[in-house]
């Protein structure tokens, strides 16, 4: 317990020494907090239609009402509540997609890098094939031909981005393989599965964490682009709010602007935190 606390404190101290890192952490904590307690924070029901209060501007503007802080959308639904609920789904989607991608990509990267040979080239050709088709095109294709819902979206983005993990893990494993402790383990006849799970996996975790944080950001962006193209998952996500609001950009700017700001700030936070993590966990990598 005590050592845990100590490392936590140490990390906190390291975080505190980096301005951008702590800014990122504050943003992410705030967003996570709002997402977790969305139902307590949101003042209105997100589906509650009130045509008499349609397209109200934010409360500080002329014509705004105090109960609708960020104004209302075309159907009189409270924008503040919707943005807050949006954080919940957007983050959930981002994190789930990253988990799916990691669950596929990390083992493949481990195996590919460790065994090499045919297995390696087999998986790497699949990776090449995957890279050759833009993620958004894969998503467009699959979601366009199947039913676009949240689960589907998570799976598609996860399956379309696993290669990032496979590549990163593979190259880590390739260099780890040359290290003495792995060589020793192999020579003394430790089973391959044990080497993979006990020795290699823990050593690639930091790279995986760095890649994951940035992938959450990418997923949020992809989700909003798909919503724009009319194939997003039908749910109250920031992306959907943003793309639905674009038609009112000139008349009711707030409908699209606040979700847009939410996306930008969150992605900003994730990138800042990710950069910091990269510097701390992996001081040698630059890209």
């Amino acid at each position, binding site marked *: 317990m005590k050592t845990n606390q100590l490392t936590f404190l140490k990390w906190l101290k390291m975080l505190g020494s980096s301005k951008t890192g702590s800014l990122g952490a504050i943003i992410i904590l705030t967003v996570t907090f709002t997402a977790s307690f969305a139902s307590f924070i949101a003042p209105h029901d997100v*589906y*509650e*239609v009130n*045509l008499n209060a*349609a397209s109200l501007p934010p409360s500080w503007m002329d014509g705004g009402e105090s109960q609708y802080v960020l104004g209302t959308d*075309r*159907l009189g639904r409270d924008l503040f509540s919707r943005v807050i609920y949006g954080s919940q789904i957007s983050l959930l989607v981002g994190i789930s997609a990253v988990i799916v991608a990691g669950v596929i990509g990390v083992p493949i990267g481990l195996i590919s890098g460790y065994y090499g040979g045919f297995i390696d080239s087999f998986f790497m050709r699949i990776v090449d094939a995957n890279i050759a088709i833009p993620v958004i095109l894969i998503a467009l294709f699959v*979601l*366009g031909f199947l*039913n*676009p819902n949240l689960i589907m979206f998570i799976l598609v983005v996860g399956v379309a981005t696993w290669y990032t993990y496979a590549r990163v893990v593979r190259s880590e494993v390739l260099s780890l393989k040359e290290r003495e402790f792995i060589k020793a383990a192999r020579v003394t006849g430790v089973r391959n599965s044990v080497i993979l799970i006990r020795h290699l996996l823990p050593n690639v975790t930091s790279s995986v964490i760095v890649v994951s944080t940035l992938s959450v950001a990418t997923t949020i962006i992809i989700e909003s682009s798909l919503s724009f193209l*009319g*194939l997003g998952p*039908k749910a109250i996500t920031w992306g959907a709010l943003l793309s*639905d609001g*674009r*038609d*009112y*950009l*000139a*008349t009711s700017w707030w409908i699209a602007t606040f979700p847009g700001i939410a996306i930008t700030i969150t992605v900003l936070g994730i990138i800042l935190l990710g950069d910091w993590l990269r510097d701390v966990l992996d001081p040698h990598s630059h890209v």
Partner: protein
Amino acid sequence: MKKTLMFMVVLCGLLILSLVACSNAEEANVDQEKTNTEEEGKEVSESEQDQERILTIAIPNDIYSFDIHDHNQIDTEAVHINIFSYLLTRQTDMEVEPDLLESYEPVDDVTWAMSLKEGITFHNGDPLTAEDVKFTLERVANDDTLQEHGRLKVIKEVKILNDYEFEIITDGAQPTLMNLLSRIGSGILPKNYIEENGWDHFLSNPIGTGPFKFVEWRRDDRIILEPYENYFEGRVQGIDQVVFRVIPEVSTRINELLTGGVDIVTDLTPDDMQRINAQEGVSAVSAPSQRVGFLGLHHGEEHPTSDPKVREAIELAIDNEAITKQILLGEATPTRTRITPGNFGAHPRLYNTYLYDPNRAKQLLEEAGYGDGLELTLTLADNHYLKANEINEVIASMLAQVGIDVNIQFVDWSRFLELRNAGDYGQMYFAVYGNSIFDSSIGLQEFASNVGWDRASYRNEEVTELWEQALNNMNFDEREEQYQRIQEIVAEERPKIYLYHQNEVYGVSDDVIFTPRTDSMLVIKDMRMQ
């Protein structure tokens, strides 16, 4: 260090300058070429009289092809109609008038004698003859892979009498033949041209007898037309070139209009009108369309919607006027039937009216045994119809107020069609249907037979009988009564709940006189540039 900074600033400045310089050079080039190929509408408005007058129209989707008989797209026909003339055509008031025809009259129930105007030529100079008519109509009538085939398969034969006279023989009496022949199906193709050069050549270099001839089609970008000098009604005056520009994103279309990039913008939402009208030099116009929005209800016994009381409650729970006034901003009219004014068989009593009585709706639900609430699924093609997402969210909230929990299932368009056709849409689906031939037969056929594809399982002997009688009935008064009776029964039994008749919204530059048409066609010869 300071010097480095300075240098960077200078470097950036130079980059920007060079970009601007390049683009200026480009612009200069364009200026020089203006007399030849300038296509920007903006230039037109500024141009002198002796310069080209180019009419630019922004449309959301590209045309499908120049096989005018193998598509099912109003957008595409709206372009084709300028290149191809039909045997008959609808005037701006939607009255059917002869176009290529000089005269037409029934010989008997299945034969029509028709004669062509003389001296009409295709864009390559070939004269239009009855041969072309036969070639065209029999192609559509016989080739079942063509999408227009379904409408013109009633034509059995075209008999040529001489160069300009021919007879159309139909399969049984066809009271709607005139309606069918005033659509793209009777757009006449050049027989000799196609036979000599091949079909592929025609598709890339289409010619017709219409007021405009084809110049260029850059897919997903633009279609360019020019007036045909020898158009049989005389060359269209005041327009030297027409450009249809494909712009899928609605805000981009509006931005083009606001900045003078285009003269006419189609497919806008009522919300856009305010923004357009706020700017000088452009305005928003609207006209009733042929489109009617409705809820389709499943009549299968496993569904609560098979109970007439539930169906009535749903209709009573919906405040149509809230939809037409607040969501569609007045650009729609409440209706209880799909056959709107201007269509044969329209029922005036069911139009511009609606039933709204939430208390009665609650009562009905209680009577039906759903006093504790009812949960229904509503399937909707995501973002496919004008404002449909919002409208359905509002409907859901209205139904919630009488105790019906609606779970909206958003699916994409093709998935929607699958679900609808398989009857797997839950209890309700929302759709907006048009009517391309201005006749009740098409709008009411789904209630009469098993040709309906939503598997709603609605059956009514009287409706079936009336519809079959009306189909080939050449007594038009009686036929109208039969259709009106069907509509009364439908309104009573509610296999579908009709909601509103929607207007089409356009944005127009003040330099152009444009009257929107109910059939959504963009007939350029009726437009004027100032």
